[in-house]
């Protein structure tokens, strides 16, 4: 069984490898887009139960973004909300029997690269060359240390998410292989549900904090 650290390979389209990770990502996308399309139907002024639930999600994410990044940065809420919902559903997809797409270093590295690009794009846009000069603060000797620190941010973000979810998937596979019935429920509650939501929350919080620091 090759490619166990990444998603196992399935088939090729136009010469590109479609791994199991890509297929599971499509399934997560279908779930999220389906949920969004259903939520858009018949929006009313006095919300019923389902609309209330959706508004609760939107409100809590917006509150999280404004309390962490400040009121004027409310425009970041759609991206952070998407990131959080996608990561939460992707991490929890172990319950429906999928191999979680975030248990692939390629996906977590891609998301961490998005964060890295956002940090430096907004830093350069706000402060111009001062953003690069900020790497030489407080002393010029600190330049290599600060560069390594900046590189460590996406590495640690991607490794943390990958390690937690992949480690959880390995342990769940071992437990399910040893005792197939009833016993996997409790560890699955922890590894799939709790750790999944917590890790997606951590990823989004750290992204917000890094971008806020770059914008200051």
């Amino acid at each position, binding site marked *: 069984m090759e490619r166990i650290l990444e998603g196992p390979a399935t088939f090729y389209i136009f010469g590109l490898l479609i791994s199991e990770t890509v297929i599971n990502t499509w399934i997560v996308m279908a779930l999220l887009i389906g949920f969004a399309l259903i939520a858009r139907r018949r929006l009313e002024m006095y919300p019923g139960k389902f609309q209330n639930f959706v508004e609760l999600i939107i409100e809590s994410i917006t509150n999280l973004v404004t309390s962490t990044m400040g009121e004027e940065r409310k425009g970041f809420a759609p991206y952070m909300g998407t990131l959080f919902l996608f990561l939460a559903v992707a991490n929890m997809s172990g319950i429906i029997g999928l191999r979680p797409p975030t248990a692939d270093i390629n996906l977590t590295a891609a998301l961490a690269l998005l964060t890295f690009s956002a940090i430096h794009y907004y830093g350069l846009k706000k402060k111009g060359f001062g953003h690069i000069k900020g790497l030489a603060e407080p002393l010029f000797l600190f330049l290599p240390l600060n560069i390594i620190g900046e590189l460590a941010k996406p590495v640690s973000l991607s490794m943390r998410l990958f*390690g937690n979810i992949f480690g959880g998937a390995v342990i769940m596979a071992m437990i399910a292989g040893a005792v197939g019935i009833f016993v996997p429920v409790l560890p699955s509650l922890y590894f799939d549900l709790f750790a999944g939501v917590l890790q997606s929350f951590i990823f989004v919080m750290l992204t917000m904090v890094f971008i806020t620091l770059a914008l200051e």
Partner: protein
Amino acid sequence: MEHTAMTVAAFAALGAGIAMIAGLGPGIGQGYAAGKGVEAVGRQPEARGPITLTMLLGQAVAETTGIYALVIAFILIGIVYRVL
């Protein structure tokens, strides 16, 4: 002594086990953070919600170095898998 793929696999398996000694660090660090969290709740029981959230946030960040060691162990086990 002739070194084969089996030697590499043996040392990789050994390395994977030694790498997980790094599980000591996050254990101590996260436990210390949990202790401080419990202390804070004891001092102000009505702030239990935000304190718990902040504690979990800090613990998950402190876990990162342990996860680095885990990924190294996975890579080494993958080598053993490929040889055997």
